[in-house]
């Protein structure tokens, strides 16, 4: 083992969130380390060769690798130390500092860091987690894996596939595989509405005549060594398959886009409290978790639909981690009822003088003419109207709040209500 190294800020993960966090911490003058387990920087963006990245941030439509490059090219000019093919194995806490054991090709390294930023991204839900039964054959893969094979290796994992789940990666892959000459027999979604962005449904499915079947799911797969067919069935309101509606569809692959899970096993190992709704850490508006000096950002915090917000989230964490921003007057909890899927951050500082706080939220269902209210006890602090809200489309909401409004111990409550036409 080499001698322990010290950093002010250490970022785990060099996808869009981690890159932005490391650069932001560096700009604030912190001695910063960026740790990436893969050989190349950029995270999942490396394999996202479609465009649409950076519209919010740069006003341009970039591909994933182009977007990542905008950050990666700044690294040589910065003082950020970058370790690739480096894997954080164990984290220990000591006096609000974190001690990391990192596995690298040069050996095991030990790092002490004042601030630690988790930018660990997310993983895909697997066929087993959604209960796909039948034979366990080759040809059942997640959309991200299919994307790796197609875009990084340049090899097709299917000639005729079915896509289960209408998440964005599934929609993107439906188009991508079609463009490469594979047949996509359809995208099947158990929910009554698609899970991906409206623009992806239109640009990836409608433009290529790929059928979308809602309220249908996979009940069984067939095949011996390789998948040969998939059984689908309609589902009822509880998402349970309806007997008698089964249909068997021949295909050689089942590609799953059935949700992303923030990867927080490392954060959990040091006791970072997670939000059951987001599956990410509970954070304040600086993306600091409830553990002092430990931050989370990007998709590890909550699954975003636009990379632009992921970068912003990284920057917030990086800047705060470098400056040791702390909430001297304590935190106010932020809660939401069942009309929302979640709100991030889950805490805000009482003390800060910046009046504008930024919240990210998703509605629990499709809503038209909805009003969002933020209340504290009986008092309504804020309200705003939305023409349309859909769960797949995350909302970014800047809210002006005064110090006085944040006094006391009552939580802020988010609530959504559809306007009835009068």
């Amino acid at each position, binding site marked *: 083992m080499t001698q322990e190294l010290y950093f002010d800020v250490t970022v785990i993960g060099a996808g869009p969130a981690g890159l932005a966090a490391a650069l932001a911490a560096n700009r604030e003058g912190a001695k910063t380390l960026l740790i990436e387990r893969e050989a190349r920087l950029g995270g999942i963006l490396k394999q996202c060769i479609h465009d649409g990245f950076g519209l919010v941030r740069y006003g341009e439509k970039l591909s994933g690798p182009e977007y990542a490059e905008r950050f990666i090219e700044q690294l040589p000019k910065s003082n950020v130390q970058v370790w690739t093919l480096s*894997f954080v194995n164990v984290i220990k806490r000591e006096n609000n500092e974190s001690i990391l054991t990192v596995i690298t090709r040069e*050996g095991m390294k030990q790092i002490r860091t004042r601030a630690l930023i988790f930018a660990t991204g997310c993983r895909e839900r697997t066929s087993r987690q959604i209960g796909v*039964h*039948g034979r*366990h*054959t080759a040809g059942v893969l997640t959309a991200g894996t299919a994307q790796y094979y197609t875009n990084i290796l340049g090899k097709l994992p299917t*000639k005729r596939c079915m896509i289960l789940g209408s998440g964005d990666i599934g929609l993107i892959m439906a188009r991508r595989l079609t463009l490469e000459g594979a047949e996509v027999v359809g995208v099947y979604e158990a929910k009554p509405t698609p899970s991906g962005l409206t623009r992806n449904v239109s640009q990836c499915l409608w433009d290529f005549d790929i059928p979308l079947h809602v309220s249908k799911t996979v009940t069984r797969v067939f095949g011996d060594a390789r998948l040969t067919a998939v059984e689908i069935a309609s589902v009822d309101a509880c998402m349970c398959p309806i007997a008698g509606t089964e249909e068997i569809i021949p295909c050689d692959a089942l590609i799953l886009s059935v949700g992303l899970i923030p990867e927080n096993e490392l954060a959990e190992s040091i006791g970072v409290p997670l939000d059951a709704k987001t599956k990410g850490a509970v954070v304040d508006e600086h993306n600091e978790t409830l553990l002092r000096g430990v931050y989370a950002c990007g998709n590890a915090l909550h699954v975003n639909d636009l990379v632009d917000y992921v970068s912003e989230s990284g920057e917030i964490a990086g800047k705060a981690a470098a400056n040791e921003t702390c909430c001297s007057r304590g935190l106010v909890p932020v809660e939401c009822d069942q009309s929302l899927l979640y709100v991030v951050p889950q805490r805000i500082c009482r003390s800060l003088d910046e009046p504008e706080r930024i919240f990210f939220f998703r509605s629990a269902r499709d809503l038209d003419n909805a009003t969002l209210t933020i209340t504290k006890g009986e008092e309504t602090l804020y309200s705003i109207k939305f023409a349309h809200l859909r769960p797949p489309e995350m909302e970014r909401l800047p809210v002006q709040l005064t110090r006085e409004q944040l006094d006391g111990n009552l939580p802020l409550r988010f609530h959504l209500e559809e306007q009835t036409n009068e």
Partner: protein
Amino acid sequence: MSYVKRINRKLSARFSGRVSAREHDRVLYLEGELDRWDDVVAAGRMAVNRKKYDGLVNDIHFTGDVIPPMRLPRVQDDSLDGATPDVLVIGGGIVGCAIARECAKYDMQILLVEKEHDIAMQTTSRNDGMVHPGIDLIPGQIKRYYNMRGNRMYDQICSELDVPFLRSGQYVCFQGRAMAIAAFFGQLYYKLLGPRVQYLSKHEFFRREPNMSPAITAALYYPDAGVVSPYGLALAYAENAVDNGAQVSLDTAVLGMTIEGDRIVSVRTNRGTIYPKVVINAAGVFSDDVARMAQDRFFSIHPRKGTNTILDHKASVRMRTIVSSYGTSDTRKRHTKGGGLVKTIDQNTLVGPDAVETYRKEDFSTEAQSVAFVFDRQRATDPALHIRDSITYFSGIRAATYEEDFVIRRGKWTKNIVHAAGIQSPGITAAPAIAVDVAKMAADVLSETREVKPNPAFNPIHKSIVHVNELDDAARDALIRENPDYGEIVCRCEQISRGEVIDALHRSIPCDTLDGVRRRVRPSGGRCQGAFCGPLVLQLIAQQTGKPVEQVGKSGPGGEILFGSIKEVQA
């Protein structure tokens, strides 16, 4: 009235004359036609009588469906044509592999054939990995004898073969006051039977396993129970056999035999005809088919499927060892020991299995209702069990005979065959002991034609692949400095390095599939199930074996992952 007459009367009443029994040379044969498989099995169960007969052969023709034929390898060549091994072992499950290794202790030429693309592909890889203390077995059973002997051998064999084995102990829990008292007296009975057992009060049990159901009132503790990786052990046996001169031929199926008089003279395979002096039947669910080819069929296999579920490490911290509840395993009725909740050697909780009769010997499909059924039952032990904590589930097929016992013996009619057949639970536990005896029987058969001596060069020691994340930091650091590939993590969930994956591809038993690598070093055995590491492992296999990536399969030929380069593939 003779037994056959009586049983014929019963069968006739139950199945309206469609089924009859006859006996010949201490074997009971059932004949007739039935259209429900459960009835076929029920007839066998009604008729079986191990005191009067050496075995029951159930020849009732099942008309309800087509019984699928045995899956055969795709390869056809003559690589084994004309081979004349002393011993031909048919089947590369744990029993066959252990036998090959024990045979290597004699100066015998050994050939093991396995029809799958890797060893330990079927029942051996598809069970709960328990080393049983021998709880539910009845004195007089062959499987009880081998269970007790095999269990005692585990420490030594796993140390010789460098296979992780944990004697973690097993709790059988009881609920209600009456049952707690019954448990107290039960331990006295078990003590008479053999396995070491200890009565635990509720208090003592919860001190050891605090997260189990509060309804538990007492437990029996069996300190001799343990866990092992069953395919890890089978692999180690096979590799040690090869290191000691045995030959293993994968993708090799036995298709027929030529019998002259009371001896097998040749065995036909898809890779040529073999002329062995002794044949060992370790063919698992197909052991009755092998016995038929050898004209030595005096037992029948009725396959019984079981499904197990593996939980995420995060949910697995709730328990430390093996815990089951009395009454959840249905041992008498369903003939399964039903491990209950098993903390595997890899520290995942395994939930299962159930027991479902099937006529499909290789039906490894899973059913949602099987998983749900098992979880429902095991909630008696741990009410917090939840299906959403699963990372995977799998099915295996038990090779059950109607006697519900192992067949470990020389041929009944054919002189140069030895059966290690009808092996179901506790087959993993029993395998080390079975192998010693079967190797001895094979040596006895061979010594009828020539002198058989011990193999002076036999080396019992096998070294497994080093699992780098089990080393302490200093040792791990030193290893990485020697070979940086051990410092490059390929599988993030289970922390498997590139070096370990490469090691898995260069062992005595060849490996060139994703599943093969997984069973050797566990990449994709974790919560992402290979979504991240699958493509990396695939590329490493291609690179190390010199194959194009398109030829790398999940579990073997036919299971390739990729179809070719983009732009070139035609849908």
